[in-house]
């Protein structure tokens, strides 16, 4: 599997886990989408830094080739999966009453 396949898989798993396992349904919450809207421009900025300066480089055979602000488009799926799963798990513990406040 190349980066594109794994990114799509990770995105799908994160969405499934949110809906059916964590049942936090972050995907229906304004708190999640507002946070994501705040983070996404910073993701583009920091990814642009890492990729435009060739700090991180990608094998052309491992990506689709579509780039957004110099970073592979796959990074959006990767970032979404990471952010959704972390915020979801944070929410799971909060719901269980673990260090809620």
């Amino acid at each position, binding site marked *: 599997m190349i980066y594109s396949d794994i990114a799509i898989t990770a995105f799908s798993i994160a969405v499934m886990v949110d809906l059916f396992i964590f049942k936090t349904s972050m995907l229906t919450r304004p*708190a999640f989408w507002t946070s994501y809207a705040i983070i996404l421009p910073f993701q583009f900025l920091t990814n642009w830094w890492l990729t435009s300066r060739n700090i991180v480089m990608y094998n052309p055979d491992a990506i689709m080739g579509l780039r957004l602000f110099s970073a592979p488009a796959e990074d959006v799926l990767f970032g979404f999966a990471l952010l959704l799963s972390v915020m979801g798990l944070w929410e799971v513990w909060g719901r269980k009453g673990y260090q809620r406040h």
Partner: protein
Amino acid sequence: MKQWSYMAMLIFTFCGSAWLEIYLKTGVLRRIKRVAISVLPISVLFLAWDAYAIAQGHWFFDREQILGIFGPFGIPLEEYLFFMVIPMAAIFTIEGVTTVKPHWRKDEFGE
């Protein structure tokens, strides 16, 4: 200085999100155990992906722009930190949002 290029991005991200802790008193660091059990299980999975991608050559790093410290699986220190700093930034952000919009948190917890 060039070897700090990747680290600079991590410091920027941490400072750019952790100020909410002071400004909005989100109290995330006070709940460090909840941070740990939210971040670590996810970062382990993403680091496994990272190890695989590095081994397969999907992505690679400019040795002159990282500190050159490598952990297990040939993963640079900066990547390990990435999977702590970015998840923490996400938590700072959502806690910042729900501090400003407490009714969104009320809906979430039914309090």
